[in-house]
């Protein structure tokens, strides 16, 4: 394992310290590094709190700031945060409007956020994101994984909260955005969890993992590497087939951390053409590393249907470490 670290035990703490120092103008690191919160809170506004395992940066702490999250609770690498973290965050950022938890659909995350909601004094509602179409759902299973679409939910709901939307409506909006968002990923190489020290999985010289998860979980199938155009075709077909509806959409090409921007833009070019074939109009675009898996090579594609309301919230000003426009 080759990483720019001092020791696996201190990676998260040192990285959070650097993050907080680099963005001291907009955020504050909570005691014992339990959470990152906005520097300036808006009294009465419903608070948005997310979090999850670390290693997906900029998700989630990179989306704390005006127009997005009020706080994010970073767990150990690929491990959900613990309830004390959310309880501590709630205590600081719930200024009377209650709080919305935005939680990716993993049992670890759900249970830890659930316990926090039960133990906390605040009024809490929860939006579960589950946009990954790679894993076919089955009625008795736990459903889909929450992946890159989560940041779209955070952006849209964040803008709505900023505009004064009350908690109950934010929950409805978040569920709606999630329901209209689908993603799928592909990996060309594995990631290595610092504390584990060895790659999470191994791919052959010419293999890719189609449908990979954001923790390096295996996907639909391991197959020979294909040209970018074919990869985009398969992924967009899976997304469109599952999404059903057509119309204006946001197309997010999300790098997993080890893929050059040059390739991500090339994938955008391919994915946009495929999306148009399926009847989508790519009304908004985002290309870059937003929901990563450490240094994994590969990317995910996400289509999120937009209407006037959600497009407006997407376009609204945002000022976070990982996403910024309009201010």
């Amino acid at each position: 394992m080759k990483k720019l670290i001092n020791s696996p035990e201190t990676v998260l703490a040192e990285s959070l310290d650097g993050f907080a120092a680099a963005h001291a103008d907009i955020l504050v690191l909570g005691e014992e590094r339990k959470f990152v919160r906005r520097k300036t809170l808006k009294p009465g506004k419903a608070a948005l709190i997310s979090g999850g395992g670390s290693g997906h940066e900029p998700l989630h702490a990179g989306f704390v700031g005006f127009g997005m999250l009020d706080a994010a609770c970073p767990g150990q690498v690929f491990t959900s945060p613990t309830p004390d973290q959310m309880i501590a965050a709630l205590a600081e950022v719930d200024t009377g409007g209650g709080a919305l938890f935005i939680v990716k659909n993993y049992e670890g995350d759900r249970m830890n956020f659930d316990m926090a909601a039960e133990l906390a004094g605040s009024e809490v509602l929860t939006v579960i994101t589950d946009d990954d179409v790679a894993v076919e759902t089955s009625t008795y299973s736990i459903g889909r994984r929450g992946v890159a679409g989560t940041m779209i939910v955070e952006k849209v709901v964040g803008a709505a909260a900023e505009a004064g939307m009350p908690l109950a409506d934010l929950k409805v909006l978040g569920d709606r955005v999630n329901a209209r968002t689908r993603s799928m990923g592909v990996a060309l190489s594995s990631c290595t969890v610092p504390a584990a020290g060895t790659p999470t999985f191994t791919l052959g010289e010419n293999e890719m993992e189609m449908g990979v998860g954001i923790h390096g979980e295996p996907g639909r199938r391991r197959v020979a590497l294909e040209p970018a155009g074919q990869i985009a075709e398969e992924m967009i077909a899976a997304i469109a087939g599952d999404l059903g509806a057509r119309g204006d959409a946001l197309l997010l090409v999300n790098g997993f951390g080890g893929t050059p921007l040059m390739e991500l833009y090339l994938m955008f070019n391919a994915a946009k053409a495929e999306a148009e074939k399926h009847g989508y109009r790519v009304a908004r675009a985002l290309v870059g590393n937003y929901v990563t898996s450490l240094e994994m090579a590969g990317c995910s594609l996400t289509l999120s249907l937009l209407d006037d309301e959600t497009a407006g919230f997407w376009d609204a000003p945002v000022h976070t470490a990982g996403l910024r426009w309009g201010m």
Partner: protein
Amino acid sequence: MIDEAKKRALIEAMAAAMIGHAEELTALDQAIGDGDHGLNMKRGFEAVLADNDVIAAKPLPDALKAIGTTLVMKVGGASGPLYGTLALALAKELPADPSRDDLARALRGAIAAVKARGKSESGQKTMLDVLEPVAAALESGADPVAAANGAAEATIPLKAIRGRAAFLGDRSIGHMDPGARSSALLVAAIAGVLGGISDGG
């Protein structure tokens, strides 16, 4: 009688089991999960171990409550809330000086709490597939350690319905569930200290 020395020894044995098998548990979790189960359990039990003096001095129910709270706050992942819930439920159901019957009854209650927390059942390739046979062994007078080890092995052919391994569908078949393994290790550690468990004491 589970006195302070025994409580201390129990915590030491459980912590040693988790620390000593961290890499094995992580390897199991790399195969069908996200490769952190060993680290999660190690982190949690290291925190419990660090508090051993304080915890072991408490009456058994309070000690279990402290252990459960520490696990909830330190382990993270799916296993943190689940093992935490297990310990917290045992804390509620066990008297200060339990008999083997008390233990069996309390474990059944705690298993129900874990199921509620995890929205899960036996047969879904999780820690429950070890915990339930252990409860049955306690009830029937069989050896809980043998039951636990056998039950962990028996998760290998199962298809996961809960936990991260469920995302793999059929590809989860053929691997032991990491949480089942950690449960079996903990059961063995506890039995090693209590010794008498399997013969009524």
